[in-house]
């Protein structure tokens, strides 16, 4: 591998393998060749001895002991949550779930109705009754009671179309409407009787009217019916008084003075109550946990 004259390269080759030689890590052929060279070269033997001495010195060097232990602090066992905290946590969870469910029901109900439900519509509708009752009494006899009534009735009804929820709230009223009408009103005109029937039976309304009346449009007039029973009409009235006439007068002369008291739906009240319950129990839980 190395020529006899190239001793420097040989020494370098041996030097690089002395460490592996000491640790018995050399391949067999390299090991044999290195031992052969060590037997012939005093310089490489001295180099090997110095390397052995170095390793021995390193192992003899004093090692300072650590001044402290390196064990980790053992965490204290966690105490189980108290009854109050567990109750507050459970109450918060239940109230939150109930709030979410209530809001969900509210949203589904509104979507099902097709339009946002006005909170005060039923109340406002009922509060207009006294005004309409006043308008019922003095009706001039010369006023036409034929076809124009229906036209006016349909016109007056159209701007005040209530939403479905308002309609449902006022539906029971028309069933009692025909009973208190004075007999004179029923006898005088068959057409006015038809109109009254159409108003009391919403399903037949399109047949009786001009074809544009819908059950929704009939609803407002039906709510007036109880007022007619409460207000005794004078028998001397020459012309029959119908609900259409009432609405005609209402649209021409009397402007209904409506007042509304703030009323909130029960569902909304439940939502507000649950919201405050969540806040209350959540705060209680946090306070308990901090303590």
């Amino acid at each position, binding site marked *: 591998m190395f020529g006899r004259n190239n001793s420097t390269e040989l020494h370098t080759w041996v*030097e*690089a*393998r*002395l*460490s*592996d030689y000491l*640790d018995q*890590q050399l391949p067999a052929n390299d090991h044999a060749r290195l031992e052969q060279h060590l037997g012939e070269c005093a*310089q*490489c033997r*001295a*180099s090997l*001895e*110095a*390397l052995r*001495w*170095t*390793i021995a*010195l*390193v*192992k*003899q*060097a*004093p*090692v*300072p*002991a*650590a*001044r*402290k*232990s*390196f*064990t*980790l*602090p*053992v*965490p204290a066992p966690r105490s189980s949550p108290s009854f109050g905290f567990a109750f507050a946590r459970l109450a918060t969870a239940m109230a939150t779930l109930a709030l979410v469910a209530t809001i969900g029901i509210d949203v589904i109900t509104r979507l099902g109705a097709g339009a946002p439900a006005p909170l005060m519509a039923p109340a406002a509708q009922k509060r207009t009754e006294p005004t309409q009752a006043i308008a019922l009494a003095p009706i001039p006899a010369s006023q036409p009671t034929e076809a124009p009534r229906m036209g006016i009735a349909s016109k007056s009804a159209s701007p005040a179309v209530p939403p479905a929820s308002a309609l449902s709230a006022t539906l029971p009223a028309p069933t009692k409407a025909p009973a208190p009408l004075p007999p004179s009103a029923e006898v005088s005109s068959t057409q006015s009787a038809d109109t009254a029937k159409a108003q009391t039976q919403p399903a037949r309304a399109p047949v009786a009217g001009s074809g544009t009346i819908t059950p929704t449009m009939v609803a407002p007039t039906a709510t007036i019916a109880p007022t007619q029973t409460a207000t005794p009409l004078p028998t001397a009235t020459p012309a029959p008084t119908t609900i259409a006439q009432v609405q005609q007068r209402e649209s021409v002369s009397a402007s209904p003075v409506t007042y509304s008291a703030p009323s909130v739906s029960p569902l909304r009240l439940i939502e507000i109550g649950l919201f405050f319950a969540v806040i209350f129990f959540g705060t209680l839980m946090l306070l308990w946990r901090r303590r």
Partner: protein
Amino acid sequence: MDEQALIHAAQQGDVAAFNQIVRAYQAQVYRTAYRVLGDQAAAEDATQEAFISAFKHIRAYRGGSFKAWLLRIVTNACYDQLRAKQRRPTASLEAILLDADNPAPGVDRAAPESPQDFVERQELGATIQRGLGTLPPDQRMTLILVDIEGLSYDEVAQAMQTNLGTVKSRLSRARLALRDFLVQQVELVPARYRLKSEPF
């Protein structure tokens, strides 16, 4: 409880079981850190960080030599300390080590050892430490793990995340460089520790 059971318990979060492992290895870990860093405070910091890191990542241990796995963490902690030391150099504790009246804390004086022997041993330790300080960190760590801590080449390769050939070459260069340093600074080596034969 054997080591594997303690490791398994520590992997489940048992700090008490991990502390038993710490007690078994802390002397070796600290010794290695001290030899690499040459400073007690830095070695203590590195040791503590290594054990904390080991506990945090003990789930990553998948078997094999636990000592090698632990020393790999120690190696990284020592490298972190060396980088920090380069950024903010501190005073050496070498003077304290050489002072016979104020030996390094924790260095136990052997019972039969005379005060002179004790001083000479301290001088030897200081010289070795100075020689180790002249080596590149990779070579220094390899030499410490093999010649002082007695790890096998395979364990060193695992601890230093390298291959066997690299370990051999680093160790060879480190030994030769330290030998050259000690031969050149032989007057710093106490007389009874000097090489009897003529240097090459």
